């Protein structure tokens, strides 16, 4: 048996323990783990000390890993014993108590120390820093006995301390050196608004002011300023900043500057020693926020588990203030420079201020005050480097005004009661989500989805759930995957997977999984349908569709209903039918005792409640009347909705019905990343509702307007105007080219609306309108692909293909008891 290697973690804080938890997920048996922490507790969420101070949470609420957890996971914890030296030559750590522990790998996560100004009187009783549970205990104790408090420092931590002490009943004065509060995160306008609303809550400010001395005999009595004036103080909290704690690293000969120097694999000067969190300096930057350390923890764990592929490339960070009722968000470069522009929105009466710093059409920084609902969205745009020119005129009003396709938050989620329903699909209330986040120590959106189901169905509440996560975990949390894999089975993104399929000429799902080193033997329900589509799209006519990788609806060619029956929707070209067709549908409905017959929103007739065994017979009867599958069940071209057009309508300008039928004849049977709906309206009155479709044609007297990227559904999104063309032939060519572009570029399960928002309307215009040659090529690829997709799946199955899919097994008695045969 191989000896387990020894891993020692110095620093029982959020960063170090996050790395251990990530490691346990990857390689639970690889190491004997020992953890040293100078504080006498398990591991807790330091970000939430402010709510503890403000009596909004208890210490028990913020514990992440209890002592029992360490025991259950076989980790030796020395809490309250500090490592004083690392003997790198002999690979041992030496603790204050004299204890020596050997290591093969060492993680330094020593965090940071609060900066204590070298003022006269700084060692007087009653002068505290604000860093850990002991500090909070001291502050709470003082608030019970004394009246006046002075907080030195008007930054994030200082203001949170001041607010907490005030909530504990103290008179609080904040002393700040600068002219505006939180100048590291806020510009002057937002800082002024913040000061005003904190003053309304009863905080006093002395600023700009320099503290000269702390005065007192037995205990602190007052704070004296440079101008000689004084402010009474029974408690002084020093919150002027933090400094990476490099004492141990320095003493052990590990290279340090401001922090412990690490490379992109989070290794220090000594490759056996990793470091992460607030103690490190990476590419010149030190971080004091939580989001970067989550990313760093993943990288450390990846290398300790010997996967050897993780790299940390630095983080962009955002900040929120944890003062109840004050909404404030800041990210990136919020001051700007010579080559930047500022977009500013101010509404003093509502107390709202928003500023975006823009450089070359991309967001470089943001400050939001009073209305921070869109903070996460701006941060995402900033991190992704999304060009905002397509929606610049509305960007300050928020995602809801940019035709967002279903991911915006609503009003400040903090104001909602615990009983407010957040996820309408799964009936999950705010209280359930908050409880799950705290009780089960959830940190990511995916974890919340897994545990509560909130935001796991339609996704329209994702913004709200992310806000809850941010508010519950502490404001500076942010969901920050630099790159999002297609699913947990792989490390590659949708784009990387599709790129490899084409470049490496991979033509089966097993080949893709082998080449890209899938982590699971045969994928999962998320990646397999996606891969099947990507292969189908890349190799039309060649790829053998993998039935078992399709969702049941596409395997059974009907929509599964909640009771396990199916719905059947025959195709009615352009929504036009006839007496003969209607009679056939009526006959089928009676013959198979179909419980419900309903007209759909896409101008079709839906037969609901058909038993699976009956499907082939139902289809056979419908085929006999000339019907084919309506694909109402697929990630495919669904319907082309039309109005009656100039043949009948007195307002009609073109033959919208005829054009709709032509479009449906050429596009039916095509598979897509998601469902696709088209419509043709005969005049701008738009009776076919073409402007909420994936592609809508609005006929006008002089031709045809093409509109793209709309959808009804979860969140209505009106289309964007693409262009105007003169003839029906052009409509067909543009439409097919657009659909092919969508098929080739969108991620699986991404509808045209979010796809266009992601890539930008300009991109679609360039490819479809400006580039005639490219459009022709797309059109040709679409037609080529259609050669293989326009076989009616119903007719095939009615004729006996895949009969086993629709027939149950039969149980026959066995001649002999099987137990004897196998024994």
């Amino acid at each position, binding site marked *: 048996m191989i000896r387990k290697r020894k891993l020692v973690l110095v620093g029982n804080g959020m960063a170090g323990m996050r790395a251990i938890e990530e490691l346990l997920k990857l390689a639970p048996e690889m190491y004997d783990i020992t953890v040293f922490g100078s504080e006498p507790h398990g591991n807790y969420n330091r970000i939430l000390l402010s709510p503890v101070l403000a009596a909004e949470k208890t210490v028990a609420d913020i514990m992440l890993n209890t002592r029992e957890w360490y025991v259950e996971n076989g980790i030796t914890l020395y809490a309250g014993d500090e490592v004083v030296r690392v003997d790198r030559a002999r690979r041992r750590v030496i603790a204050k108590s004299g204890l020596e522990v050997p290591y093969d790998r060492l993680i330094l996560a020593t965090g940071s120390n609060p900066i204590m100004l070298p003022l006269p009187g700084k060692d007087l009783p009653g002068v505290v820093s604000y860093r850990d549970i002991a500090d909070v205990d001291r502050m709470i104790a003082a608030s019970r006995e004394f009246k006046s408090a002075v907080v030195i420092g008007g930054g994030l931590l200082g203001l949170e301390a001041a607010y907490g002490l005030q909530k504990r009943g103290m008179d609080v004065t904040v002393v700040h050196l600068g002219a505006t509060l939180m100048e590291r995160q806020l510009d002057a306008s937002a800082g002024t608004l913040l000061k005003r609303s904190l003053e309304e809550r009863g905080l006093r400010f002395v600023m700009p002011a320099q503290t000269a001395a702390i005065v007192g005999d037995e205990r602190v009595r007052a704070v004296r300023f440079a101008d000689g004036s004084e402010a009474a103080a029974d408690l002084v909290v020093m919150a002027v900043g933090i400094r990476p704690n490099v004492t141990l690293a320095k003493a052990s000969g590990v290279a340090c500057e401001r922090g412990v120097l690490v490379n992109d694999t989070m290794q220090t000067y000594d490759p056996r020693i990793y470091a992460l969190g607030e103690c490190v300096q990476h590419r010149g930057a030190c971080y004091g926020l939580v989001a970067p350390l989550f990313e760093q923890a993943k990288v450390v764990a990846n290398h300790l588990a010997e996967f050897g592929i993780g790299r940390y490339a630095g983080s962009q960070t955002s900040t929120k203030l944890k003062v109840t009722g004050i909404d404030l968000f800041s990210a990136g470069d919020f001051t700007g420079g010579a080559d930047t522009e500022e977009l500013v929105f101010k509404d003093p009466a509502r107390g709202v201020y928003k500023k975006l710093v823009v450089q070359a059409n991309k967001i470089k920084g943001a400050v939001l005050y009073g209305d921070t609902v869109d903070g996460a969205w701006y941060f995402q745009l900033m991190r992704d480097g999304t060009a905002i020119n397509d929606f610049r005129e509305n960007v300050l009003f928020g995602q809801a005004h940019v035709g967002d396709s279903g991911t915006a938050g609503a009003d400040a989620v903090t104001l909602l009661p615990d009983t407010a329903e957040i996820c309408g699909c799964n009936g999950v209330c705010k209280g359930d989500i908050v409880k799950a986040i705290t009780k089960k120590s959830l940190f990511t959106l995916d974890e919340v989805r897994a545990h509560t189901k909130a935001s796991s169905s339609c996704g329209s509440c994702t913004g709200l759930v992310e806000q809850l996560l941010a508010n519950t975990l502490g404001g500076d949390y942010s969901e920050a995957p630099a790159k999002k894999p297609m699913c947990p089975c792989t490390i590659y993104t949708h784009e990387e997977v599709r790129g490899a399929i084409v470049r490496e000429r991979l033509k089966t799902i097993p080949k893709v999984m082998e080449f890209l080193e899938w982590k699971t033997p045969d994928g999962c*329900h998320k990646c397999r*349908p996606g891969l099947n589509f990507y292969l189908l799209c890349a190799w039309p006519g060649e790829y053998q569709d993998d039935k078992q990788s399709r969702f049941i609806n596409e395997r059974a060619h009907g929509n599964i209903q909640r009771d396990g029956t199916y719905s059947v929707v025959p195709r009615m070209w352009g929504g036009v039918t006839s007496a003969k067709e209607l009679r056939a549908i009526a006959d089928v409905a009676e013959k198979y005792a179909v419980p419900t017959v309903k007209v759909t929103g896409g101008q079709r007739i839906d037969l609901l409640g058909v038993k699976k065994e009956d499907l082939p017979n139902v289809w056979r009867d419908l085929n006999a009347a000339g019907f084919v599958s309506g694909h109402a069940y697929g990630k495919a071209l669904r319907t082309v909705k039309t109005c009656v057009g100039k043949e009948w309508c007195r307002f009609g300008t073109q033959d919208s019905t005829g054009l709709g039928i032509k479009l449906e004849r050429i596009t039916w049977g095509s598979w897509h990343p998601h469902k696709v709906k088209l419509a043709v309206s005969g005049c701008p009155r738009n009776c076919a509702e073409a402007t909420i479709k994936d592609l809508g044609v609005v006929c006008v007297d002089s031709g045809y307007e093409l509109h793209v990227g709309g959808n009804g559904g979860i969140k209505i999104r009106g289309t964007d105007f693409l262009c105007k063309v003169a003839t029906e032939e052009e409509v067909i060519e543009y439409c097919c080219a657009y659909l092919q572009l969508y098929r080739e570029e969108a991620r699986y399960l991404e509808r045209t609306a979010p796809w266009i928002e992601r890539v930008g309307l300009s991109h679609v215009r360039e490819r479809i309108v400006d580039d005639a040659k490219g459009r022709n090529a797309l059109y040709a690829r679409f037609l080529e692909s259609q050669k293989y997709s326009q076989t009616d799946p119903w007719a095939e199955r009615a004729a006996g293909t895949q009969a086993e899919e629709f027939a149950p*097994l039969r149980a026959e008695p066995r001649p002999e008891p099987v137990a004897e045969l196998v024994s």
Partner: protein
Amino acid sequence: MSWVDLGPLAALPERGARCVRIGGLTVAIFRTSTGEVFALRDQCPHRGGPLSQGIVHGTRVTCPLHDWVIDLKTGQATGADEGATSTYNVRVVDGRIALELPAEALAKAS
């Protein structure tokens, strides 16, 4: 206990399932990519969805209604979900599928 014959293994699609109705009970018979065979009550512990219609991956199946992932070996929901469906004894003997008659099916039938 008595066992019944469900036909040749080839009648089951790889990474797929088929059902058998015995008495009032529907049992889903699964076949994985490695040729293992499992039998579960065809009812998701969440909202009763037909597990036989789900996508089979590894030794798991994803319910088609709300994406619960059920372990075929134990019938237990995986991940953060909690719940279980019944499992039954099933074997492949001489290339044919044999299922031990579930006690509850016999009870329902009688």
